[in-house]
C-alpha cells in the first residue's frame, strides 16, 4: 500500500502533505487509476449509490436528531414539530424516511446482482460476508429508526420483534426483559433504540470501508465472470466508472426525488400517524416493505421457535453462499439452468414480500409456505447440485474479447 504509487502531486503543498500522510495516493490508486473491468454494466453502479445513500441517511439523521426528543411523552410530538415548525423539517424527515426505503431498494438490487454474476465466489468470499454483515446492521438500524417515531406501528413492531427473542428456550424471557429495560416496551426501550440508531450507521460505515478494501484486493467482479488477464481488459476508474456511477446515481436520485416530493407517504403505513397506544393493537401489524419477505417466512412456519429460526436462518444462509454454490462458472450469463432458477428466486422473493403484507389466512398461508420452501431449496438444493450437473456455456477468452469481439 505504501510506496510505489503512480501518484505524483504537482502542487508543492500536496507533495509536503503526501510525504507525511499519503491519502492523495490512496484516493488516486483506489478511485482514479484503479483498473476496472471494461465490461461493467449498470448493475455495478449500485455500490456507489449505496455509499451515497449512507451519506444521505447519516447527514439527514444527524440534522433530525437536533430536533427529536427520545421520550415516550414527547417523541411523536417532536416528529410532528419537525414536520410543521422546523425550517425545511418536512423535507428532512421525508428524505430520511424515503431514503431508508431507497437504501434498501438499492441494497436488494446490489445483492441480486451478486447472486446472478457469482460475485460471492472465490476470492471474494470475505467481501460477500462483509456485505451480509452490512445488511444485518442495516436491518437493525432501520427497525430501530422506525420505532423512534413512536406511532402505533412503531410501538407494536417493537413489541413483536423484541418478543421474537422469547422463543429462545430457557433464557428467552430474560433476554427480552433485558432488551426492554422494563416489563414491556416503554421509555427505556425508546431511549436505548435512539442511542443505538445513532451509533449503528457509523459501524456500517466502518464495515463499508472493510468491504471496499476487500473488493480492491480481489478486484471488481464483472458480467462475464472471468478475471482480467491484461491491461486491455481494464480501464482506469476515473473517468469511466466515475461517470457511469454518476449517471446511475442521477437516475436513482430522480426516483428518490419522485417519492420525496410527490408521494412521500406512499411507502409508509397510515397507522404510524396515530400516537402509540400500549392498550390497543392495530388490526394488522405490518413492517415496512423491505422486511415483508422475512415477515412472510416467519409467519409461514406454525411453530414459534422454528419460525424464528427460519427468519434468522433466511438471512444467515446468505453468508454460506460461497460454499453452497459448487459451480466453477461465476456468471449466470454462461449458466442457462441457474439463470432460470435465479429468476424463479426473484419471483419468490417478490411473492413473499407481497404475502407478508397480507393477513396470514387461507391461500396466502399456502403460497407463503410454497415460496419459503423454494427460498431455502434454492440455496440448499439447487445451488449445490447445479454446480455438479449443469452444462455451462463456453466462456469467452478474455473480457476485452467479450466486449470488442475477436479482433480486440
Amino acid at each position: 500500500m505504501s510506496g510505489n504509487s503512480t501518484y505524483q502531486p504537482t502542487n508543492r503543498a500536496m507533495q509536503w502533505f503526501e510525504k507525511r500522510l499519503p491519502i492523495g495516493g490512496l484516493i488516486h490508486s483506489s478511485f482514479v487509476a484503479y483498473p476496472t473491468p471494461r465490461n461493467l454494466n449498470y448493475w455495478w453502479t449500485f455500490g456507489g449509490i449505496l455509499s451515497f445513500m449512507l451519506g444521505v441517511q447519516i447527514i439527514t439523521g444527524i440534522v433530525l436528531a437536533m430536533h427529536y426528543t427520545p421520550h415516550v411523552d414527547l417523541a411523536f410530538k417532536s416528529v410532528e414539530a419537525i414536520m410543521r415548525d422546523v425550517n425545511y423539517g418536512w423535507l428532512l424527515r421525508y428524505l430520511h424516511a424515503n431514503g431508508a426505503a431507497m437504501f434498501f431498494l438499492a441494497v436488494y438490487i446490489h445483492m441480486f446482482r451478486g447472486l446472478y454474476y457469482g460475485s460471492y465466489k472465490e476470492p471474494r468470499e470475505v467481501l460477500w460476508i462483509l456485505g451480509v454483515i452490512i445488511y444485518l446492521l442495516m436491518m437493525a438500524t432501520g427497525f430501530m429508526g422506525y420505532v423512534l417515531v413512536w406511532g402505533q406501528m412503531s410501538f407494536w413492531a417493537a413489541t413483536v420483534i423484541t418478543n421474537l427473542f422469547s422463543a429462545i428456550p430457557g433464557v428467552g424471557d430474560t433476554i427480552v426483559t433485558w432488551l426492554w429495560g422494563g416489563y414491556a416496551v416503554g421509555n427505556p426501550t425508546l431511549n436505548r433504540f435512539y442511542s443505538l440508531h445513532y451509533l449503528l450507521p457509523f459501524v456500517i460505515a466502518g464495515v463499508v470501508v472493510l468491504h471496499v478494501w476487500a473488493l480492491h484486493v480481489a478486484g471488481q467482479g464483472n458480467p462475464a465472470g472471468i478475471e482480467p488477464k491484461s491491461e486491455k481488459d481494464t480501464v482506469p476508474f476515473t473517468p469511466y466508472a466515475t461517470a457511469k456511477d454518476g449517471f446511475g446515481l442521477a437516475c436513482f436520485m430522480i426516483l428518490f426525488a419522485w417519492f420525496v416530493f410527490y408521494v412521500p407517504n406512499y411507502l409508509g403505513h397510515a397507522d404510524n400517524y396515530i400516537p402509540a397506544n400500549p392498550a390497543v393493537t392495530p388490526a394488522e401489524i405490518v413492517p415496512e416493505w423491505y422486511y415483508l419477505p422475512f415477515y412472510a417466512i416467519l409467519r409461514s412456519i406454525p411453530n414459534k421457535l422454528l419460525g424464528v429460526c427460519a427468519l434468522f436462518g433466511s438471512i444467515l444462509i446468505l453468508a454460506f453462499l460461497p460454499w453452497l454454490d459448487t459451480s466453477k462458472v461465476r456468471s449466470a450469463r454462461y449458466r442457462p439452468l441457474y439463470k432460470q432458477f435465479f429468476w424463479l428466486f426473484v419471483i419468490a422473493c417478490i411473492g413473499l414480500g407481497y404475502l407478508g403484507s397480507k393477513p396470514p389466512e387461507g391461500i396466502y398461508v399456502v403460497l407463503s409456505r410454497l415460496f419459503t420452501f423454494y427460498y431455502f431449496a434454492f440455496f440448499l438444493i439447487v445451488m449445490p447440485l447445479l454446480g455438479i450437473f449443469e452444462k455451462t456455456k463456453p466462456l469467452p477468452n478474455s473480457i476485452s474479447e467479450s466486449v470488442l469481439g475477436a479482433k480486440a
Partner: protein
Amino acid sequence: MTTVSSAEHSRRDFLYIATAAVGAVGAAAVLVPLIAQMNPDASTIAAGAPVDIDLAPIADGQIVKVFWRSKPIFIFHRTKHDIEVAQNVNVASLPDPAPDSERVQAGHEQWLVVIGICTHLGCIPLAHEGNYDGWFCPCHGSQYDSAGRIRQGPAPKNLYLPPYKFVSDSKIQIG
C-alpha cells in the same frame, strides 16, 4: 489508446464543465435546507411574539423583571429623584455617552425599560445595588446607573433597550 480529435476534446471539456456547474448548483441547493434548519423554527418564533406588560402594579421606585424572547427585561418605575439624578449627569464623562432622554420615551420619563443582561459577558446585574442608584453586576463588578448606563467596571456599553411602545399610560408592549 486511440487518438481523439480536438473537436471531441472540446466536447468532453464542455461536458466536464457542464457537469461540474450543475453539480455545484446541486451542492449549494443541498446546503440551503441543512443550514436553514438550525435557524429558529416556527414555534420558537411564535413564542417570541410581543408581550403586553401592565405597569399599574409596579410601585414608585420598584424594579421588576419580565421575560421576552427568553431575555430578562428590567422595568424600573423611577422616582422623581432618580430621574433628576439621571438627567443631571455630565454625559461626556460617561464610558458610553448617552443623555437620559435617549434612554426613555418622551412623556414617560418615569419608566426605564432595558434588557437585563450585562454588556460585558452576559450575567444578570442585581437591582438597587452599586454606587449609582442602579444595578451592580456580581460577575466582574460593572455598575449601571438609574438610566441603565455603564458607569464603572469592564462592561463596554449601556444596558441595551428592547423595542417597546406604550399601548396606554399603564401598559407597554415589548417586542
